[in-house]
């Protein structure tokens, strides 16, 4: 336990002493504020249209613009999810590959530290940095709740916002677990990042592939797709299915990483 925490702390401090983390923070905030402003604008336009023609005469897909939660924040979480998919591989890539490249992996393997402690420490550090990255985006709903107004009290429906945010954290944790495993396979950080991306992206888009398949393949594909699993929770509907699903994916990849590190002893 002491070892795990020491490793996690060191990982975090190394993240913050390199430019990578700040570039990722900038990309996250930059991209999501761009989409945030854009969706505020379309929200405003639709609201004006509705005022002129009443909601009943607008096309039904505009219904989400009735409130700020569905019209802006839920849309924003969708964007943050995609940005996470792109940045998480660059955060996870160094976890093991860097140690292998600079030969400190040899030190880690000859210190009295169990592979499990090492992997958990690294993963905790990774969770820390992805939470920090995602933590920045909570600024947007906070901004809305300060400046926004609604006819029915509070501008935002916080339970929906936070549930969606929880879904994002779950998704970030999943990306980091996969990235950490890939990183444990190679010395090259770039290769680790690209490979992680090559796993995450098709997995995310799996649902599109499933559309043309027959049952039961289609249901299976739908169940396995990250996108479909995240759909409900992003909209603020809490059920057990995505929790179990992402929990299992994370556990699976953490255990794989542990095996991959342990395998060094047998190489």
């Amino acid at each position, binding site marked *: 336990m002491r070892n795990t925490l020491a490793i996690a702390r*060191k990982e975090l401090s190394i993240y913050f*002493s390199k430019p990578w983390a700040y570039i990722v923070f900038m990309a996250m905030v930059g991209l999501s504020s761009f989409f945030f402003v854009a969706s505020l604008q379309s929200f405003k336009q639709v609201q004006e249209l509705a005022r002129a023609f009443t909601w009943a005469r607008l096309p039904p897909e505009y219904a989400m613009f009735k409130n700020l939660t569905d019209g802006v924040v839920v849309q924003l979480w969708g964007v943050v999810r995609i940005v996470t998919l792109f940045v998480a591989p660059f955060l996870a890539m160094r976890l093991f590959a860097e140690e292998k490249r*600079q030969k400190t992996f040899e*030190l880690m393997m*000859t*210190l009295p530290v169990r592979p499990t402690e090492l992997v958990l420490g690294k993963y905790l550090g990774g969770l820390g940095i992805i939470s920090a990255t995602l933590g920045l985006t909570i600024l947007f709903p906070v901004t809305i709740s300060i400046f926004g107004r609604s006819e029915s009290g509070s501008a935002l429906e916080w339970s929906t916002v936070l549930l969606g945010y929880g879904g994002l954290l779950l998704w970030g944790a999943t990306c980091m677990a996969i990235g950490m495993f890939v990183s444990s396979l190679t010395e090259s950080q770039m290769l680790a990042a690209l490979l992680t991306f090559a796993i995450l992206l098709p997995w995310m888009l799996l649902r599109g592939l499933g559309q043309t398949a027959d049952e039961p393949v289609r249901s299976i594909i739908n169940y396995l797709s990250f996108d479909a699993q995240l759909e409900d929770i992003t909209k603020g509907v809490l059920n057990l299915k995505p929790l179990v699903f992402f929990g299992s994916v994370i556990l699976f990849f953490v255990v794989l990483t542990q095996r991959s590190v342990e395998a060094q*002893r047998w190489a």
Partner: protein
Amino acid sequence: MHMIEVNNLTKRYRDRVAIDHLNFSVEQGEILGFLGPNGAGKTTTMKILAGYLPASEGSAKVAGFDVFEKPMEVKRRIGYLPEVPPLYPEMTVTGYLKYVATLKGVPSGQIRGEVQRVGALTGTAQVMNRVIQNLSKGFRQRVGIAQALLNSPSVLILDEPTEGLDPTQRAEVRSLIRGLAGKHTVILSTHILPEVTMTCEKVLIIHQGKIVAFDQIKNLSQAYGGGEQVSLEEVFIKLTAA
């Protein structure tokens, strides 16, 4: 008691045999010079002893524990300096040594004192607050040695500890290692032969993965000098000239 015991230790990388049925033992408190031309298998042997690589055949025991069966027991008792000093370039020297001390199980209250102790021993006290990537090669090497000394392990495995040091620093490291004799068991590899004569009593010379000599330095120089004393260098050249 044999502090290090190696039996028929063999390592193969696919078809290439790196080390071939090595047998030797090191007594407690002894300093063993581990010699051989480049590529003879020194680093491989040390990596196996430190528990980083598994052997293909045979066994190695440190303080009575098999390195493969009881890795944690062995790792608690060794300090290891790999060929390339294992440093995190972004960390400060203190930060790095504190981190390694924590992972070596030094109690939290004693970490600061332990870091100061190894800092004084290796002459790194003056660079404690600097970031490792800005240090000269000599300091990096010494931080690597400092790391191995943390928590006073009973066995030290040092792979070319004087590599990259200037003559003065080399002399310092030599006297540091000599000072460890008696309390610690040390295996030290190098290809600077006068160094060995000055620090070790006993040497192990391997060539193409096989032991070609394992004896006291004075016995070797007598045996290969034909009556008169010759330097270790001549013995080395004679033995590895295959």
